[in-house]
């Protein structure tokens, strides 16, 4: 098992594509997205609008090496600043297969 950083991001479903692009630009190997999650934060409740299909969040899980982390965070921060959302970083071990 290799020690890595585990990153979770929740933001507007529309912006999650931009987040994924940023990840790829930083050479992150992969990610997993839960396309539609309900959320509450500073901008109130976001449960996805039934009619226009907007105002919903997505959840993204990815991993990176400790060395990649600072650059990645700097790249993601402005997106969250503009659209809201959270980014959590924690420690984990990657099980190699």
């Amino acid at each position, binding site marked *: 098992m290799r020690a890595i950083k585990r990153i979770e991001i929740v933001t*507007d479903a*529309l912006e999650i594509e931009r987040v994924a692009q940023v990840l790829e630009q930083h050479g992150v190997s992969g990610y997993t997205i839960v396309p539609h999650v309900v959320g509450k934060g500073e901008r*109130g409740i976001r449960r996805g*609008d*039934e*009619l*226009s*299909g*907007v*105002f919903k969040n997505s959840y993204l899980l990815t991993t990176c090496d400790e060395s990649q982390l600072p650059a990645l965070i700097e790249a993601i921060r402005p997106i969250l600043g*503009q*659209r809201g959302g959270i980014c959590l970083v924690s420690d984990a071990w990657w099980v190699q297969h």
Partner: protein
Amino acid sequence: MNADLIIANLLNPPVLFFLLGGLAVLVKSDLELPAPIPKALSLYLLLALGFKGGIALRENNDGLALPALCAALLMALATPIYAFPILRRRMTLPDAAAVAATYGSVSAVTFVTATAFLQRLGEPQSGYMTAALALMESPAIAVGVLFARLGQRNGDDMRSRFAVLLHEAMLNGSVLLLVGSLAIGYVVGGAGGESLKPFTEALFPGLLSLFLLDMGLVVGRRLGDLRRMGAFPIAFAFGMPLFNAALGMGIARLIGLPVGDALLFVVLCASASYIAVPAAMRQALPQANPALYVTMALALTFPFNVVIGIPLYLSVIAAFW
């Protein structure tokens, strides 16, 4: 005004299902249409509406199409222009711009309900009114966002967003489906569209009822948001449709639209958007508060038009025509 028309409208199954939806929320029932069904129903309504409109557009052209479409475009552009300064007195810049766009744009479901009402009454209607509906969806969005841009510092950022917005407003899925179906209906014509009739016509009142049941649920859930809203937005949400309806009636009379088309035109002027506008504003004016502009259009203007407005407008039209 004519109480019979109000009652005729209230005995219209789609309106009754709308009220049932509202009631379900009121008594805290867990009735709900599961997630993509309402979306699918709204796509169906747009497809059927466009297709029928296209066929009608081809078959019956009485020379009124062009003036009607010009009037529609005019109203869509003018509404945000006179609404914005009023709104700006009591709202933030982005909110005022978003509400102005909301009332300049239109509600396809209100239109469709008026259509079904006319059909029950046996009143004829023209295909170009569907084209007017399509035409009125987007321009007000552009005007609203333009106002927001003019009032804001960071013009650069706004400029890039403006392109995105125009794209979003014109090529929004709902608008495209409506326009596309209209074109297809026009191209295939009456004989070519015969095979789709059971789908686009026979099912229409039933699926509209189901959709309005869901609209009732959605509106009911939004009613709670009204408490947090001041008196001004509430007054605006009833006053604007009435003003626009009066203006629309005058224009319809001038052009010489027949009764059915006049009602549809008035309904377009009086209705407010809660689908195309939020979809565009999310991109173009993320600072605007959807709990304000969506709730005004959806929880106040929409039920007012569907339950009272449509027969009210028709009874006035009937008196003056």
